[in-house]
C-alpha cells in the first residue's frame, strides 16, 4: 500500500503522447542525418512514435470510460507485465532479430509480415466463434482447400491447356467465388446441425465433417479430365484479389498488398458482430454459461448454427484469398490451417473453456506467429528449430495467460 501511487489519467496520457512525440522526433532527426546501416529504422521510429501518441490520445479522450486514475505499484506493474507478457516477449524477439540482422528494420519487412498475416487472420477470425462457445472447428483447413479448388476450377483462362472444365465459358468472377463459399457454408451448416441437434461435442462433429470435406474435395479434384492435377492457369482478374499492390514506387517501395485492407475490413466486421450485435453477445453468453443462456430465452440452437456457418464463410473466403494469392490450388490446400488458427487465437487470449476472447487478442496472436516465422527465417534459423520455438511460445503464452485467472 505504501508503494502505491495514483496519478490521474490525464497526466498519464499526456506523458504517453509526449513519449510518442519524442520517439517520432528522434526518427525524424535520424532520417535527416546520414543513417546507412540502419536501413529504415528512422521511418519505423516515426511510425512507432505516431502509434504511441495515438494510444495516448485515446487514453486522454477515453478517460471517462477507463476511469480517471491509474495506480502504480509493484503489484500493478507485475499485473501489467503478466497481461502483456506475450507482446513484451514479441518486442524482445524483434529487438534481438534486429541486432542479429539489421536489414530486418525495413518498411518492406513490416508490410510483408502484415501481408502474410492477412489470410491467416481471416481463418482465425472464423474459428474464434466456435472457440468462444467452448468448442472448436477442425474442419477449417479443409474448407479452405475446398473453396480454393472449387473457385479456381471455374476460373481458368480460355487458352490454358489443362482446363478443369474444358468447355466452360468465361464466367463472371462472382459466380465461382459465391459457389465456393456457398459449398463451405453447407458444410458449416452440417457442423452446426450436428452440434446443435445432437449435442455432439464440436471436436467430434467437426472432425467428422473435416474428413468428409477432404473426401469431397478430393473426389471433385480427381474428376476427369483433371485427375488430381494441380489447378493452374488461373485468370488474372481472379489473382488480382490476392496479388494487387497499391502505392508501388519502383525500387523504393514495393507496395501495400490488397490483402491488408481486406483483412482490416473483415476484422472490423467481425469485431462489430461480436461486440455490437445480439448474436455476438449470445455467443459469449453460450460460451460463458449455456444453461443461463437457455433460461434467459436465448435461441441457442440458431446461435450455434450461425457460429459454424459464419466460420465456414470465413474459411471459404480465406480459401479464395489463398488461391488468388498463389494463383492455383490443389486438394492439399489449407492442410493444418485450423491448428495454426487455434494456436493464434489461444495465444491471443481466447479461452478454450469458452466465453472469453477479443479481436485485438486474435490479431496479436496471428501477428506473433508470423513475426516468429518470418523473423526466424530472416536470421536463418532452420525450420525445424522454428517448430520447436513455435511450440514453446504456445505453451508459454497460454501458461502466462492462465495465471491471470488464478485466484487467492
Amino acid at each position, binding site marked *: 500500500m505504501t508503494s502505491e501511487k495514483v496519478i490521474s489519467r490525464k497526466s498519464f496520457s499526456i506523458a504517453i503522447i509526449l513519449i510518442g512525440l519524442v520517439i517520432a522526433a528522434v526518427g525524424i532527426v535520424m532520417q535527416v542525418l546520414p543513417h546507412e546501416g540502419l536501413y529504415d529504422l528512422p521511418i519505423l521510429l516515426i511510425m512507432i512514435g505516431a502509434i504511441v501518441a495515438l494510444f495516448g490520445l485515446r487514453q486522454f479522450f477515453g478517460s471517462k470510460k477507463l476511469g480517471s486514475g491509474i495506480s502504480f505499484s509493484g503489484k500493478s506493474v507485475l499485473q501489467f507485465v503478466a497481461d502483456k507478457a506475450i507482446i513484451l516477449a514479441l518486442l524482445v524477439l524483434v529487438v534481438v532479430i534486429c541486432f542479429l540482422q539489421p536489414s530486418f528494420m525495413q518498411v518492406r519487412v513490416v508490410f510483408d509480415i502484415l501481408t502474410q498475416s492477412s489470410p491467416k487472420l481471416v481463418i482465425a477470425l472464423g474459428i474464434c466463434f466456435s472457440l468462444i462457445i467452448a468448442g472448436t472447428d477442425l474442419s477449417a483447413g479443409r474448407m479452405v482447400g475446398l473453396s480454393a479448388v472449387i473457385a479456381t476450377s471455374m476460373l481458368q483462362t480460355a487458352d490454358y491447356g489443362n482446363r478443369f472444365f474444358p468447355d466452360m465459358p468465361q464466367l463472371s468472377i462472382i459466380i465461382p467465388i459465391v459457389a465456393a463459399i456457398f459449398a463451405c457454408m453447407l458444410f458449416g451448416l452440417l457442423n452446426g446441425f450436428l452440434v446443435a441437434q445432437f449435442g455432439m461435442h464440436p471436436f467430434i462433429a467437426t472432425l467428422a465433417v473435416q474428413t468428409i470435406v477432404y473426401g469431397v474435395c478430393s473426389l471433385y479434384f480427381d474428376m476427369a479430365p483433371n485427375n488430381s492435377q494441380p489447378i493452374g492457369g488461373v485468370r488474372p482478374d481472379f489473382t488480382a484479389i490476392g496479388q494487387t499492390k497499391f502505392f508501388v514506387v519502383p525500387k523504393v517501395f514495393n507496395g501495400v498488398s490488397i490483402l491488408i485492407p481486406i483483412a482490416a475490413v473483415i476484422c472490423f466486421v467481425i469485431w*462489430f458482430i461480436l461486440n*455490437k*450485435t*445480439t448474436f455476438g*453477445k*449470445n455467443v*459469449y*453468453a453460450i460460451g*460463458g*454459461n449455456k*444453461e*443461463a*443462456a*437457455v*433460461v*434467459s*430465452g*436465448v*435461441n441457442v440452437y440458431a446461435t450455434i448454427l450461425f457460429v459454424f456457418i459464419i466460420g465456414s464463410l470465413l474459411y471459404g473466403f480465406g480459401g479464395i484469398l489463398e488461391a488468388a494469392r498463389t494463383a492455383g490450388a490443389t486438394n492439399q490446400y489449407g492442410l493444418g490451417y485450423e491448428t495454426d488458427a487455434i494456436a493464434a487465437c489461444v495465444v491471443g487470449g481466447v479461452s478454450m473453456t469458452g*466465453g*472469453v476472447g477479443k479481436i485485438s487478442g486474435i490479431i496479436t496472436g496471428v501477428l506473433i506467429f508470423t513475426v516468429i516465422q518470418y523473423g526466424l527465417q530472416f536470421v536463418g534459423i532452420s525450420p525445424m528449430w522454428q517448430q520447436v520455438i513455435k511450440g514453446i511460445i504456445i505453451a508459454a503464452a497460454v501458461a502466462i495467460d492462465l495465471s491471470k485467472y488464478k485466484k*487467492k
Partner: protein
Amino acid sequence: MGEYVLEMKEITKLFPGVVALDKVSLNVRPGTVHALMGENGAGKSTLMKCLFGIYQEDGGEIVFDGKPVKVTSSKQALEMGVSMIHQELHPIRFRPVMENIWLGRFPKTLFAVNHKAMYNKTKELFKQVDLDIDPSVLAGTLSASTLQLVEIAKAVSYNSKVIIMDEPTSSLTETEVEHLFAIINRLRSEGRSIIYISHKMEEILKISDEVSIMRDGKNVGTWPAAELTTDLIINRMVGRDLTNRFPEKTTQPSNEVVLKVENYTAASPRSFKNVNFELRRGEILGIGGLVGAQRTELVEALFGLRSVASGVVYKNGTQVKMDNVRKAKRNHLALLTEERRATGVFGILSVLENTVIANQKEYTTAGVVNNHKRYKVAQESCKQLNVKTPNLEVHMENLSGGNQQKVLIARWLLTNPDILILDEPTRGIDVGAKYEIYTIMLDLVARGKSVIMISSEMPELLGMSDRIMVMCEGRVTGFLNDKENFSQVEVMRLATQFGQQQAEVQA
C-alpha cells in the same frame, strides 16, 4: 381473468426411476405471494421447471391467465409472463452485469445492441430495487449475495405476471432479506404474483399469503398463511411431529486440545489476519459472522486450499504443516465446502462414486478397486444419512439439493475425520434433513471427534455450538464461551465491529 392467474392441474413428471411429480396441482391468485414448501426432493423445483419450460410435464395441464398453455421453452415462458429466479444458477462470469440481465432481449438500434440504453436501463432497474453497483462490472467480480440480488433484479425486470423465486434468500444477509421483502411487497401491490420457495419458516410465515405443501412429489394441501404455524408446517411437510429443532446433546467436550491455531494470517492482504483459537475433543465450535467475514477463507486455508503468510497449527500438540489437501486429509481433517455445486458435486458421476471418492484408496486391493466393497459401504452410509435416491447409480446432478448435501457429508464421514469442518452445512436444506445432520454432528462428537461449523443461521449457531467464535472483516472479534447464555445480540455485536483494531481476545 378468473380467480387464479395460474392453475397447474395434476402435473405429472417422470424421471428414469423416479416419479418426481405425481398429479400435483397448484393454483395461484393474482397479487399474492404463494409459498411452496416441502422437504428436499419433494419436487418443488421440478414443478417450477415445468412451468418455466425447462422440463416438459408428462401429464396434466397448465392454465395461465385463463388460457391453457403448453410451455416448451423458457423463452416462451418469459414472453407469456413468467420469470424465474433459479435455485442454482451461475452467472456468466466474464460478461458485464448488464449483459447478464438483458441477455435474450438486448435493447437495439437497427442491428446493433445499444449499450448506452442498456446501461441506463440497468441503472434505472437497480435504482428501483435499491442496488448500487456499476452495470458494466463483470459479473464474476461480485459476491454471491450481490449476484443473488442481481438475479432478483433480473427476474423483476421482465415485468412478469408471475415471478418464481426458488430459494432466493439462500445467500442473503438479514438486511438483504428485508430488502427483498420490500420489493416483494411492492410487486404484490402492483398485482403480480410470486411463487416463493424456501426452507425458512420465519420467512414464509412473514411474507406469504398462501402456503402449498408438497411431500414426495404429491400435494399435501394449500392453506392461508394466517392459519399456519411453524409446527403445523413441519408436521405437514414431514408427515410427523418434530418437537425439537435441535437434538439433545448428552456429552460434554473434554479439555484435551486437538487443534490449536496461532497467529494464522492469509497470504492475501484482504483476508483473515492473526487468527488464534483452540478446538477441544468432542467439541462443536461455531464460527459466526456476516458474509465477507472471511470465515470460509479461514477454513479453506486450514484445509490446505489457500496459502497462508504466517501462523502455526498444532494437531494434538504437535506442529503440522497442511499446505495441500492431501496433507490435511492425512491429519484427519475433512471439509464440507460452502459452494456445493462448484466444489463438491461431481454432477455426472453416480451417487456411488460421489460417496466414495474421498477415500477411494480404502477400497482397493493391490491397486484394483473392489466394487463390491465400495457399493456396500456407500449403500450403508447413504442409508444411515437417509439420502433419497432411487439407487446408487443415479447421476448426482439429478438428486435434489438437500440430498446432494447429505451425500457430500457421507463422503467426508467415510474418511473417518478427527475434525470435521462444515461450511454452512444446512444451507438450502429442509427441517427434517437439518435435524438429521445435527444428529450426525452430535454422534460424531459423542465418539470423541470434533466439529467446526460455520453458520449464518443464528438459531443453528446458537443451538448447536459448544463455543462460538465470531469474525468480522477477517479478524476474530470475540468468543462466546458460556453455552447456557449464548445471545444473538452478542454475536451480532461482535460480527459488526468493522474497522476496529484487533480486539483483545481471550480464547
